[in-house]
Each structure stands twice: as C-alpha cells, then as structure tokens.
C-alpha cells in the first residue's frame, strides 16, 4: 500500500508539472495578455514596456516558466519581498502572493465543501438507502420524487430564491458571508448556512438517486441473494453485503465531487457573492492574471489528484479484489 501511495504521488507531481506547463503555454499563447489589458486605452509603447517589465513579462518565456515552477519548490524574490515556498508567484492584478490569496479564500470553499458533503452524504445517501430498503413504499416514492425535482434545480435558480426568502424579504438571515471558525463558530456556521444548504440540496438529490439505484442494483446481486439464502436477516444483508458494493460508485463520485468543489464551487460562490477559490479562478481568468490562474488551476488539480489517490485507496479498502491484486 505504501508503495502504491508513493508511486501514485510521484505520478501526481509529474502530472502537476505537465499541467502547469500546458496551462502556462496556453495562457501565453492567448491573443491578449495582462500587460496590454492593464495598459488600457491610452496605452503607449513605453507604458506597455514599463508594465511588462514590472510584471517580469519581458523575460524569455522559458525563464518565466522556470521562475514560476522553481518558485513553487524553492520560493522566489519579488520587489515586494520574498515569496516563500510554495510560491505560486504574485498576482499581476492585486500584487499579492498567489499562495496567500488562495489560502485566504480557501477556508470559504473548504467550509462550503465539507459542510455540503456532510449534508449530502448523511441526508442524500441516507435517504437513498432508506428508499432502496423500503422500495416501493411511500417513503421511497417521496424520496425519489423529491430528488427528481431537486436535482433538476440549479444552484443559480435555487440560490436567488432562497436569498429572496431568507434574506431580502424577511431579513431572517444576514447576507451569506464567511467568518473564520476561530473568530466565532456560530457566525461561521450561520454565515455559510444558506449557500451550503443550497449547494448540498442539489447534491443531496443526486446522491439520493445514486445511493438508491446502486443499493437496488446491489440487492439484485447474486452474492446478496446467497447471503439471504444463508438465512441472514434482510437488514444484515442490506448493510453488510449490498452496502459494501454500493459504496464503490458513491465513493467514486464523491471523490470527483469533493475534489472539484475544493478547486472552487464557482456557481455557488458567484450566486451567493462569496469569495472562494472558484470566484478567484474566474477573476484570474477574466483579468488574464497568469500567476493567479496558474496557481488556482494547480491548486485545483492538486485536489483532483489527491482525491484520485484517496479514491483508489478507498477502493482497496472496500474491495479486496483491488487490494490483493
């Protein structure tokens, strides 16, 4: 297992490097750059040159790329001071180190993601399992119907409605905002409650359907029938035999969902005017802010790779066929 993790980690680092290279050169190849954008309307060649120099864009491409990549490992010096490793450069637009900007925004996204995950795992998977267990019952029909309706909603549809109800017309809740948990755990909880619930609602619906259908699928498996033929109680069979197999698709999707959410819940963040990683990514791209975009992209890719490995480890834990082959 350790060897597996080591092997995968090395692969992840290589992938990150390649991703960085591809992003960098795609960005550079784009028709307009930050300097000419920043230079604005009364741009003169002199002014453009100054901006390029100030941003380090006058250096050869390979040099720029090397500076960026080596900065991640070794840190870099900027006119504004030393940027400690992992240095993802300094944002063209704000002049702040990208890493500290990401770290500043990450708690918002992390709170959303983890809060949402708790809700959609507990409620979504729970409801799905209950529906599968009581297949055909009223409970099943309600759960299936509700998840059908809710999963066809979108965050940008549900979000504004929730805002109108709970914030704009009644004032029951404040505008969603992130407060550090260390400052005030209650505000931390209430501040992101609406966006977390709205995001989780959509996911809950999806997880309900997924959990239900995979449980039903598993219940039809022959080995589950064998377990029943041995006289094991249906509850036991449901939670020991069927559940184990149903976990695999759930874990797969969960890994993808969580890693992409940690890389930025763009729609949720924009809908609720939150300053998370997703918003940062959008801002970086629209400002043609190369260091910020690269930083956020690599940060997101890091999670995707990490969760890829975690998902594989989870597979091995769940399924001995994976573990022992």
């Amino acid at each position, binding site marked *: 297992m350790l060897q597996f993790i080591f092997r995968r980690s090395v692969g992840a680092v290589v992938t990150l490097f390649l991703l960085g290279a591809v992003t960098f050169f795609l960005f550079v190849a784009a028709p*307009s750059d930050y300097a000419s954008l920043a230079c*604005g309307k*009364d741009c003169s060649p002199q002014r453009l040159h100054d901006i390029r120099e100030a941003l380090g864009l006058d250096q050869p491409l390979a040099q720029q790329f090397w500076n960026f990549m080596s900065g991640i490992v070794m840190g870099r010096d900027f006119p504004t001071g030393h940027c400690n490793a992992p240095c993802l450069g300094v944002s063209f637009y704000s002049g702040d180190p990208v890493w500290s900007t990401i770290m500043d925004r990450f708690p918002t996204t992390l709170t959303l993601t983890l809060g949402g995950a708790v809700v959609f795992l507990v409620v979504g998977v729970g409801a799905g399992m209950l529906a599968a267990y009581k297949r055909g019952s009223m409970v099943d029909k309600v759960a299936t119907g509700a998840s059908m309706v809710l999963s066809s909603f979108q965050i940008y549809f549900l979000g504004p409605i929730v805002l109108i109800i709970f914030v704009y017309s009644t004032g029951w809740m404040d505008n969603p905002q992130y407060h550090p948990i260390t400052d005030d755990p209650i505000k931390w909880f209430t501040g992101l409650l609406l966006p977390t619930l709205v995001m989780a609602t959509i996911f809950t619906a999806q997880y309900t359907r997924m959990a239900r259908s995979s449980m039903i699928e598993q219940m039809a498996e022959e080995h589950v029938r064998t377990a029943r033929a041995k006289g094991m109680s249906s509850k036991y069979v449901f939670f020991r035999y069927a559940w184990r197999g149903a976990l695999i698709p759930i874990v797969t999707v969960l890994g993808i969902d969580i890693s992409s959410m940690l890389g930025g819940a763009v729609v949720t963040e924009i809908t609720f005017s939150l300053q998370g990683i997703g*918003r940062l990514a959008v801002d970086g791209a629209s400002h043609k802010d190369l260091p910020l975009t690269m930083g956020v992209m690599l940060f997101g890719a890091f999670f995707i790779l990490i969760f890829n490995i975690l998902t594989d480890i989870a597979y091995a834990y769940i399924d001995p066929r994976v573990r022992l082959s």
Partner: protein
Amino acid sequence: MDNNRQVGAYANMKSFTSRRARAIVVAIAAGSLALTGCSENKGSKSGTDSKKDQKEASVQSKPVTYVDAAGSTGPAAEVPGAKSGGTVQVYQEAGLSHLDPGQIYVSDAGQVANLLFRRLTQFQEDDKGNVSVAGDLATDSGKSSDGGKTWTFTLKDGVKDANGNAITSADVRHTVERQFAKFIFDGPPYLQTWLAGNKYASDYRKLLPGGGFDGKHLPASVLDTPDAKTVIFHFDTARPDLPQTLAMAGYAVVPAKTDTKESYDKAPVATGPYKIASYKAGKSLVLTKNTNWDPKTDSVRHQYPDGFNFTFGITETTQTKRLIADQGDDKNAIQLTGGVESTQIQDVIGNPAVNKRTVKGYQPYVMQLSFNLDRVKDIKVRQAITYAVNSKSLIAGEGGAYGGDVAPNYFAPTLPGYEASYDPYGRLKAPQGNIAKATEMVKALPAAEKKLVFAYSNSEAGQKRKVAIEDALTKVGFEVVSKEVDSASYYEQIGKLANPYDMYITGWGQDWPSPGTVITPVYDPAQVTDGSPNYAHVKDPKVKELIQTALTQDPVEAAKTWKEAEHYLLEKVVPAAPLWYTKQFQLSGSNIGGARYGSVSSLLDINRIYVKS
C-alpha cells in the same frame, strides 16, 4: 445585463483592467442567473427625467473656479442633519487594482482615495453642484506666474499623516519624484509628462530615472522646495489646468519616510479622515477614523461614520437586490462605483421608497461610433452613417433613460462648454436617425463604399450594440459586415493603427472638467499611434493647430477655441458619430444620510455620507 455600467466599463478613459474585467465578471454572473429579456426601455418618464438630468448637468458643466485661501480652510460646512458614528457597508464587484496613490487612476480606487489621501489641491462642490478647486495640503489652489509656466503652492500648517508626522514640502517633492520610478505605471501621466517637457517627450522617466530613491532629485528648475512649506513647479509651457491635475488621486501625497515602494500598494499611509485597518485584496477593506486628520485643515472632507467596510466580489445584480431589499446591514450600505443593475431599474423607480434612495447624474462619457479614417476616406459615407445611426435603440439596450441620453455632439453634459442644443445632425429631433436623408446620401455613393466592416465587443452589451448598428445602417442601404472582438481586449484590438475595421463604438470622458482632456487625447493628430485613444486616426492639420492654440490660452479664451475645434470636427471632419451620453444611477441603504451625486467623481459623494442611526 447591466449595460449602463458596461458603458462605463468601456467608456472610462481611466478604465483599464479592473473596469473591463469587471464587465466580464458581470456577464458571467448574469449568465448564470439566466436572466433573459434585458429591458428595452425604462419607462415613459424618460423624457422628463432627461430634461431634469440635463438641467442638473448644466450645473455639472459649469467651468471650474479656483478657490483662495479662505475658501480652502476647514472645517467643511456641516452636512445638514449629519450624525457621527456607525459603519458604512460598501459593496463593489471587482477588487481594487491599487491603493498606492501613484497607481490610482480608476474611479473605484479614486473613491477610496477620497477617504484616505490628501493632495495639494482638491475639488470642492457646493450644494448646487458648482465645482471649484480649493487647496488641500496647500493653503489655496495655487498661484501661477510666468504666464502659467510656474506654479507656487504653500502648505497648510497642522496637516499630519496617520503616523502623526507633519507633511512637508519634502513629502510633496517625494510624491512627485516617485512618479518617475518604474513601479509607478498605472496612474495618470500628466504631471510627469509636463515636468519632463519637450526635452523628454519620448520618455518622461528619463528626467529622473531613479524616481528620487537613489538620492538624485529633480532640479530646482523643475521642482523647487525652497523651504518646508513651499513647492514650486516650473514647466516649459503654460499649464493653466495644473490645479485640477493635482487634485487627481494619482497625485495624492506619499510621505517620504513611509514609502515602501512596490509594497506601498498594499499598505499606504493615510492622510485623509480615514485609514486602513485591514485590507485583503479583492476581498475586503476596513477603514477606521484617522485621528491625526484635523478637520480644521480640510475644507471638503468629513468624518461622520466611524468606519467603512468594503466588501468586494458582490455583483451589481446582488448589490441592487440587497439595497432594494434594505435588510439588516444593507440599510447602511452604498455602492462604490457600481450602479443599479439595468434589469432592476424598474423595481427601483417603481417603488418611491426605494427611488428616493437613489442618486443619479451624467457620467462624463460620450459614446460614439468612431470611423477609421484610414479606411473610410469618403466624408459622405461618414456623414450618411452619422445621419443613419439610431441613438434610441442603442440607449434602449443600455437600460433606457437611466442608462443614457441621446448625444447630439462630442461634448458631454459634464464638460464646460457643453451645448445642449448644438445638434448639426438633428439627432435630438430624430433620435432614431434621419433615415430619409441618410438613404438619399447612400444612393449617391459608389457601390464599393457601401460595404462597411464594424467591430464589436463580444460582451452582452456589445451584441446589442451590434444589432442596433446593423439595423440602422442596413435600413438606409449600407452593407454591414460585423466582426466580433474579444471583449477583454476590445480596446487593444481597435487601438491598433492597422486594424482591419471601418468603425467601432468607443467612449471617452474627461479627466477633469476641461475640453482639453477630451479633444486632445481623442482627436490630436500628434497622437496617432498604436494604443492611442485617437481611434479615428484624425490627422487634420487644422485640428492640430487649434489644439496647440487652446493649450496655451487662458481658460476663457481656450473654451472658445475648444468649441471651434469641436464644431470643425463634427461638421468638417466627422471622425465619429456621437451616439449617447452615459449616466450614473446608484442606490444606497435607508440608513445612509447625506447622499448626493458628486459631479467630479460622477458617483455618490462619499465624503458627505453619514449613518442616520
């Protein structure tokens, strides 16, 4: 979509990344909300409102007067009913690009700068909207001699920075000198260029490459500080507008001892009534009272609220929703540079309780269809287009009467010298265009000249404009080929001298209330270069001559020359068809008092507001 604000984004002469980038973010946000059916027209009241706005604008456009020492002494006249205390919430879509005064040129940072930084001079506005220039750090608006080539300023007593250190002439000198440093590149270029004069016209930085940081200073023949209280500027040509130039945020004082160069952009030292308590770029900015600011030295600023909480990343759509709803903290909220989002304009004006919380007025921008004179060489084509364009449908796309007004000429209502009735193409009578006349003119044109290439930005606003332009021109017999341009690099693309387009919509507004800040950058034949705002590539020698004359004249004489230049351009050169004036429409919370439109900022006057309870 918020067309009105997007106009601002494209029109703003000071506007670079932050504003244009903001437009993109707005587009993404609105797209995700799936808002359809962007408003076509905003109400039947447009006529009356426009007239009222124009009346207000006529005040806005009065020439600026220079104020003496008595008028520059604080404290500022109290705002009626104002109270101290409370915290104002400020909402803004995109983060500030800069906080280093030398880098500030855009209006969002400019608004913040009005709370934070003092300059040699500052604009002062009375209850009627009359704008004057008073002394800020200086005792008055400056004394000129030597035919306007030399300007002398004397510093007030008792002005300190947030650390409690007195501001001296050395600090002012440092502020000027650091403009030449390489890390200052985003601010206004006027003062540096003027000081550098003809000798360093190609690159003003050569006058002081070290920016004053290497022990080398500007010679006394350029900038003289004979004692701690006196600052003297010497130019090689008359600079009658200097007091207005120095009132720009970009020339706010940076106390020499506090300068941290590149890092100053994150943590500048305040001299105004507020100072920075915390700043997270692109996320939040908290201002608290600066106890070292002495109201007795300031004739304009107030210090009513205890502080300001800026939250960035709130889209105009959300800002408007929150302010209409007026719940909780939103009662104490204002918009920084954003306005009422255009699809919600009806919700605002339709509700008297909300409508009374608005401020509105003209922005300094004139939107026009610029012709590439290198390609559209026949003046008859340009005239025919100028007759044909449909201001009405274009304005409808900008949010209607609250987004813009028909522009009959090149001067905005905010500009001294603005003539409301100067309308050589009959635009006011027929805002949809003079179809008959245009059709007739087009008939007489050779077939090859009827085909036109129109560049438009691929933003939502740009798409609407494209439709309006295509419709109007096709109707009179032109064949329009529209070419889409990436909205982020729109101005970059059309700013190229060798661009492959015949016409494009551009906007420009004054840097301070003088036609010189419009005619010179936009039509000066000396400025036909890549990236220059002379998008039409005007090379007419008579225009050049008039500009040169006006720049050296005193303001009264110059006004006549500018007017002559404008009339000559619009009637004899036709480098662009005037389309519409952009307007500002902002909303604030019910607990905000003292809100009024600031003519200079074209935004809510942030120095006067207070929290009611």
